[in-house]
């Protein structure tokens, strides 16, 4: 019999029952909640007269609607100017207070983007099943966990039953061997993967990221890669547990301690695919060949190395694809053959659940240190992913570097990744963004998003257009 994949092991460990019709009941260890996708679920529970099954499995924080500017933030919930956003955050507070759910409220030092605070606090651990009403929940899979996004009805279902009705996904291995070149980051790796397999390449699969590149990658980097598994179509991404994982988790607030730590580590060391495990699909990339990436269109798969030029739809044989390319070029205001480096940048956003961890802050700071933002760049904002990232960055003096270079240093939240708060693009503006989606209107009505790494975004802020960070000085 063939060995088991990491996903097989996580699935089996959480299987409550397997039904004859192919569906299964899966137990959920950790449920993370934010203000946007939960109010209707709490309301549903209330209307049905149900109580949460296990309150101690839930942790909540507001992140999507919170202001990132210092003055507004200082006033807490009352500082949220938009009354509809304010009601949504208040509703989360009320629901959590009423039910006794642990919530890191708006100005709690532990507040932050759900997918940043989970691993950082130790609320998300290896071997867990983790869900949240947010597609980027795939992030936590970097810990060697089965973690995925769910809709609001499922948020209610997990609150009420601690379980989900699910069907096992396929096993997919994305193997990247070799060594990354200097200036090439985890963000470039995941964008290159999406460029290779497409935004539907992982649909129906749980993706395990394996190979030299991920073994050598930091935990922060693995979180970035798993974060964007959903942009490759996979609800869940994951990386096997190794010493990097254990070193990261050890000592976190909610990580097990003393004897329980030893007990946990003994189990977690099994969280890797067996040598003879069989995957339904395997994709291999050469890490040494990956260059810094920039997206040019309105789907993350529309991505090129920095040395590339905007493609010509006329060269595309598939009619549906060709139409999509033409539409994207029109929306993005680009012309076929235009070098990526010629795209001017109006705003820069460094942040989001993809790239707002301490290493991202350090990488961006290293690029802008001693330099000044181009005058043509209207605004460059750096938004740490959590209160703890912010405190750490400030302890290292990174905020002084950003401010001296003419970048803004903000309060933690989702911010301009999806522009539900006041941070957004104006129509027609190009943004070098470290976020995860370049969809039409995502960062503001008519806004033009280019997804890049923190180092590439920082370099674009200085140059005023995209540049190859490997040769930028």
């Amino acid at each position, binding site marked *: 019999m063939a060995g088991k994949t990491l996903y097989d092991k996580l699935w089996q460990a959480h299987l*409550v*029952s397997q039904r004859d*019709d192919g569906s299964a009941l899966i137990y959920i260890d950790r449920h993370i909640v934010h203000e946007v996708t939960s109010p209707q679920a709490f309301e549903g529970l209330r209307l049905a007269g149900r109580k949460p099954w296990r309150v101690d499995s839930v942790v909540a924080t507001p992140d999507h609607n919170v202001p990132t500017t210092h003055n507004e933030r200082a006033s807490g919930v009352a500082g949220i100017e938009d009354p509809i956003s304010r009601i949504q955050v208040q509703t989360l507070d009320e629901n959590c207070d009423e039910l006794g759910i*642990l919530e890191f409220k708006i100005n709690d030092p532990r507040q932050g983007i759900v997918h940043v605070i989970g691993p950082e606090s130790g609320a998300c651990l290896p071997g867990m099943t983790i869900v949240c009403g947010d597609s980027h929940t795939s992030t936590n899979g970097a810990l060697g966990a089965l973690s995925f996004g769910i809709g609001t009805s499922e948020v209610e279902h997990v609150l009420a039953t601690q379980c989900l009705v699910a069907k096992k996904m396929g096993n997919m291995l994305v193997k990247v061997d070799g060594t990354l070149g200097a200036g090439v980051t985890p963000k470039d790796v995941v964008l290159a993967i999406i460029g290779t397999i497409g935004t539907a390449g992982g649909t129906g699969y749980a993706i395990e990221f394996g190979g030299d590149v991920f073994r050598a990658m930091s935990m922060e980097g693995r979180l970035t890669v798993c974060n964007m598994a959903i942009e490759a179509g996979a609800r869940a991404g994951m990386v096997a547990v190794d010493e990097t994982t254990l070193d990261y988790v050890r000592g976190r607030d909610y990580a097990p301690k003393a004897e329980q730590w030893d007990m946990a580590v003994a189990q977690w060391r099994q969280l890797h695919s067996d040598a003879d495990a069989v995957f339904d699909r395997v994709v291999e990339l050469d890490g040494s060949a990956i260059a810094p990436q920039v997206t040019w269109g309105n789907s993350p798969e529309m991505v090129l190395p920095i040395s590339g030029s905007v493609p010509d739809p006329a060269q595309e044989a598939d009619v549906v694809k060709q139409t999509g390319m033409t539409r994207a070029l029109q929306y993005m205001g680009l012309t076929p053959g235009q070098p990526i480096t010629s795209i001017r940048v109006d705003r820069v956003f460094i942040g989001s659940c993809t790239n707002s961890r301490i290493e991202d802050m350090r990488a961006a700071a290293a690029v802008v240190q001693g330099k000044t933002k181009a005058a043509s760049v209207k605004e460059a904002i750096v938004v740490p992913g959590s209160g703890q990232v912010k405190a750490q960055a400030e302890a290292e003096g990174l905020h002084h570097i950003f401010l001296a270079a003419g970048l803004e240093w903000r309060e933690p939240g989702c911010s301009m990744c999806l522009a539900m708060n006041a941070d957004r693009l104006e129509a027609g503006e190009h943004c070098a963004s470290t976020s995860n989606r370049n969809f039409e209107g995502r960062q503001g*009505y008519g806004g033009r998003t280019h997804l890049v790494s923190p180092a590439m975004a920082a370099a674009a802020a200085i140059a005023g257009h995209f540049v190859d960070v490997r040769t930028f000085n």
Partner: protein
Amino acid sequence: MKSFTVLTGLAAPMDRSNVDTDLIIPKQFLKSINRSGFGPNAFDELRYLDKGEPGRDNSQRPLNPEFPLNFSRYQGASILVARENFGCGSSREHAPWALEEYGFRCVIAPSFADIFYNNCFKNGMLPLVLEEPLVAQIFAELYAQEGYSLTVDLERQVVIKPNGETLAFEVDAFRKHCLLNGFDDIGLTLQDAEQIKTYEAERRLSTPWLFGFAQH
């Protein structure tokens, strides 16, 4: 939940691939704490010529005359015909809520993104997968023939075209069962409460660090 048995309705086109959930319902409308009210803003950025905001009277906004769903021939459509990877992007259930409230009970496409696909079933909607050439054929027929209607019979798992041709489709047995009967699956899961408790008791022993979180 509304049950879904047999649906006969006008089909309308959404002729582009990778339609994401931001396109189906832009984020400014996600600030609502209600489950309804999203229909008038389905496909907001394609449907209107100006920028939509919550609380605006949508009936006063300029419609985009080039957007097919605004054509008179597609008014009242209940079946949306789409291209590959429909519903990609965020997990927002506001996307199926918006489509359902607009009037769509069924979306036909060659493929769907996983979370959107799943969310549809929770809202009495059927996301229906047909092979790409069959979908391309439906597009061609729909464009050629005004008033093009389809019948979707979930029990028999067939789509019936105006010319009588039937196309078989696959659907998970459990999801089909829930949809046909309009079952609330929380209620169904709670029938297995004893099994869940047994599993949980074992897990409490094997992974004690996962319990008692809120007391920290």
